[in-house]
C-alpha cells in the first residue's frame, strides 16, 4: 500500500459557534483517524484542539463523531473508509463544545458523584476478602469501562434532550449502579441503601427504554443494556422483566416491593 491524499472536514470553533473546515492530508499505511488529526496539527493548524492520551484505546480520551458516528479516533482505522470518501470529524454532540473537537464532559463527572460509593462489608479485614471468579465476573465486565462517554453521547434520552440531563445518569452511570449492586461484597443494603430503588428514583433508570444504542457504540464491547440495565430494571421491580412495561416508558416508577 502507498500513501494517498485524503479529504477531511473537521469542525472548528468554540462555544460561540463554528463550521466545518476542509483539509487535504496525506494518509499512510495502517493509520488511524487520530494520526491524521495529529498530522493536521503538525502541518496545517497547530492550534487544532483535540483530546487524546494513550493512542491505544485504553484511556477513552479521544472520543468524537466520525462521519456522524461516535467513535474513538485512535481505534478508527483509515482503511475502513474508501480513499475517495471525505471523512468528517465533529465533536461529541451531547456535550457543550469547548473548542474544535474538545467538549465539556463535566456532566459525566457530576453524575459519577451522585452514585454512592462501594460500601465495604463490616467485620471483614483487608486481606480477608474472599470472592469466587464467577461472582466477580459480572461486575468486572462493567469495570472494563474506559469512560469514553460515547454511550452517554449516543443515548437518545439526553442526546437531543438537554432537559433530561438533570434526572438521568446515562448508561455509563446506571451501569455503575448495576456494577455495585452485583458486587459480591457490597454492603450497601446493610447500610440502609437500596441501590436498585436509587437507580429507579434517583438516577432515572425509568427513562431508558432499552434501545441498545449505547451497547452498539461501546468500544469495550460491554453489553450495557443486556447485562447491566435490563437486569437492574428486573431487580428494581422485583419481577420478571416484561418488555411491554418498559417500551417507550418515560415515567419514573416507584419500586413498590424489593426485599433484596
Amino acid at each position, binding site marked *: 500500500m502507498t500513501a494517498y491524499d485524503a479529504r477531511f472536514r473537521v469542525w472548528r470553533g*468554540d462555544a460561540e459557534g463554528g463550521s466545518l473546515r476542509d483539509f487535504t492530508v496525506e494518509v*499512510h*499505511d*495502517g*493509520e*488511524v483517524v487520530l*494520526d491524521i488529526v495529529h498530522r493536521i*496539527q*503538525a*502541518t496545517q*493548524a*497547530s*492550534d*487544532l*484542539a*483535540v*483530546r*487524546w*492520551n*494513550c*493512542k*491505544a*484505546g*485504553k*484511556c*477513552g*480520551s479521544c472520543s468524537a463523531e466520525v462521519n456522524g458516528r461516535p467513535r474513538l479516533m485512535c*481505534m478508527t*482505522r483509515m482503511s475502513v473508509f474508501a480513499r475517495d470518501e471525505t471523512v468528517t470529524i465533529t465533536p461529541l454532540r451531547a456535550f457543550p463544545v*469547548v*473548542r*474544535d473537537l*474538545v467538549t465539556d*464532559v463535566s456532566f459525566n*463527572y457530576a453524575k*459519577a*458523584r451522585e452514585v*454512592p*460509593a*462501594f460500601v*465495604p462489608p463490616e467485620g471483614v479485614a*483487608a*486481606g480477608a*476478602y*474472599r*470472592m*469466587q*471468579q464467577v461472582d*466477580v465476573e459480572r*461486575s*468486572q465486565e462493567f*469495570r*472494563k*469501562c*474506559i*469512560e469514553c462517554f460515547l454511550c452517554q453521547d449516543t443515548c437518545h434520552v439526553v442526546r437531543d434532550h438537554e432537559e433530561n440531563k438533570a434526572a438521568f445518569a446515562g448508561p455509563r452511570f446506571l451501569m455503575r449502579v448495576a456494577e*455495585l449492586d452485583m*458486587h459480591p461484597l*457490597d454492603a450497601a443494603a446493610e447500610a440502609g441503601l437500596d441501590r436498585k430503588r436509587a437507580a429507579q428514583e434517583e438516577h432515572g433508570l425509568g427513562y431508558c427504554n432499552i434501545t441498545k444504542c449505547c451497547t452498539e457504540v461501546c468500544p469495550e464491547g460491554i453489553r450495557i443494556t443486556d447485562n447491566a440495565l435490563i437486569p437492574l430494571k428486573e431487580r428494581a421491580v422485583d419481577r420478571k422483566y416484561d418488555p411491554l412495561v418498559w417500551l417507550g416508558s418515560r415515567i419514573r416508577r416507584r419500586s413498590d416491593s424489593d426485599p433484596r
Partner: protein
Amino acid sequence: MAQVERQQWDVVVVGAGGAGLRAAIEARERGARTAVICKSLFGKAHTVMAEGGIAASMGNVNDHDNWQVHFRDTMRGGKFLNQWRMAELHAKEAPDRVWELETWGALFDRTPDGRISQRNFGGHEYPRLAHVGDRTGLELIRTLQQKIVQLQQEDFKEYGDHEARLKVFQECTVTRVLKDGARVSGTFCYERESGRFFVLEAPAVVLATGGIGKSFKTTSNSWEYTGDGHALALLAGAPLLNMEFVQFHPTGMVWPPSVKGILVTESVRGDGGVLRNSEGERFMFDYVPDVFKEKYAESEEEGDRWYEDPDHNRRPPELLPRDEVARAINSEVKAGRGSPHGGVFLDVSTRMPAERIKRRLPSMYHQFKELADVDITAEPMEVGPTCHYVMGGIAVDSDTAATVGVPGLFAAGEVAGGMHGSNRLGGNSLSDLLVFGRRAGLHAAGYASEGGARPVVSQEQIDAAAAEALAPFHAAEGAENPYTLHQELQTTMNDLVGIIRREAEMAEALERLAALRVRAARAGVEGHRQFNPGWHLALDLRNMLLVSECVARAALERTESRGGHTREDRPAMEREWRPVNLLCRPVDPPPADPAADRIVLVRTRTEPIRPDLLALFEKEELAKYLAEEELCE
C-alpha cells in the same frame, strides 16, 4: 504585573496517576486540605494503560513467597543499584496496599479458593502479580478515582461542598514550583481549556507526574510523558538521580508504523508466549547471562514443564528481566534473523487454545485485531523494543519521599528515582505508586501541619512564570514550529541515546540538544490561549530538553553497561560502578545563553546495604555484583 487567581491549600499533588491519587487520598485522610492537578481528564492518567499487574508477595498462588523473596528479586532486577531501603519498604508494604484496594471496591481476578489471583512475570521468582485480565492499570486508577469520589461525597455531607477538602483540577498544567527562600510555596499553573493562569499556594507539593518517554520516537508512553516533574524539580533546585537508566520494553508493536511502540504486555510471556526468530528458534536460550544461569531453564522442555510444575523446573529465559530480553531481540534483528518488519516473533497461538488467549489477554487480542489485522490466536505477533519507563528520577528520602534540599517538595511514582535501581521489574511500578504515593501523602500532610508562618508567593515569581509561559506567543518572524522541534528531539534521543549506546553518539546528542535549545527559545505558536495544543507543546519542550540533557550526560558518564543502560563500547557490568550514584544538579544561576549546559553531574556513593538485608543473599551471588571494598566491609 500578571493578575492571577490565588488559592490556598495545605498540600498540592501534581499528577493524578496511581502515585498522585494515592498521595492525595492519604493527605486528605490525614486532615490536609488537598488539591490534585493533572494535565488530562480525571481518570485518564498514564497509569490507566498498565496491563500486566501489580507485584505484591501475598503468596496466594505459591505460599513460598514473602517480602524477602520480593526484595531479592527487585534488587537483582535493578542490578543492586536500587536504593535498598525503598526496595525493602516496597516489598514489605505492597500486599497491604493491594488488599486496601479491595476495601475500596477493586475486583481482581481470583484464585479457586477466592483469593486474589497472581501471575508470573519476568524476574519474579513466584507468581506475584495481582491482575485483572490485562487491564490492571484501569482497575487501579478507577478504584482510586472512586475512592476520591467517596471522600468527596463525605465532604458534601459534612460541608455541602464536594470539593471542600479534596479537589481535582483536571486539564491544568503546572509550569513552575514556586518557592519562598529555600521552601516550597506553591505551584504556577494554567488551565488548558482557557489558557488562564492561576496559583495554588501550599507549604507542601508532591510531584507525581510520571515519566519521560515522549522524548523518544518509539515509545509506549502517551503525550503526557514529557518529563515535567523531573524538570520542575530541577528548576526548583532538587537533583535527579541516575537518569541514564531508561527501560526499553522488549515487546512493543512494530507494525503498522503508526502504532509502532505500543506495548505488548509481558503477561503474554508470563502466560506461556515464546519468542522466536525468523529461523523459528527460541533464541532466548542463547542469551542467559552468567549472573542468572542457575535460575533459568536450559532446554525448551524444562521451560515448558515449569508452567505446570514450577517447584521442580526452572523458568524459561523468555522471562528474564526486561533489559536482557530487549538486548537479545536487538541482537537477533541486527544479525539478520528478524521478522519482516524489523522485530521478532512472539507467539501464543501455538501455546494456548484460542478461548484461553481471549480470556487471559483480551486487550492484546483486541489491539492486534483492530490495529494490525493480526489474529493472535492464529498467528504470531511481531514485536520489538520500545521506550517504556525511566528508572532514574528525582532523588528522594526512602522513608518520607522528601526531595533533597527543597523543604516541602516530595516526589513519588515513576518521577521519583532510586527504587528500581538500573532496571525495573514488571509489576513493580504499580506497587511502587501505592507504597510511595501513600508515604508521600502522609509526610507531605505531616510537614504541612507543622505550623509556623505559611510561605509566601511573591508577585515577582508569578510575573516571571507568566512571562515564560507567554513567550511562544511573542516569537519573532521565522519562529520555530514546536512540532518539528519535538520530532527532531525524538529522533535524536532514539537514535543516539537509545537502547544501545556509544560514546561518540552520546556526545553528538549533547551537541544536537544544545542546538535544539537555541531553536526552542524561538518556538512560536499561532492562535490564542484557549485549548491550544501547539502552545502546550511549546511549553513542554523546555522540560523534554532539560530531561534529555540529563539522560545523555549521565549516560556518557557511566562507562559500563548495567540494566537499562547498555554501551556497546563498555559492554560489561563493572563492580566498581555498583556503589556510584550520578546526580544531575541544575547550573546555578541558570545560564542566559540557551546553548550553555543547564546541568552539572555530581558523583555520590550509595549508602551501604544494611547487613541483615545483605544476609538474604548467598555470598557467591553478592560477589558478582558488589565492588571489592564493599564485600570486605
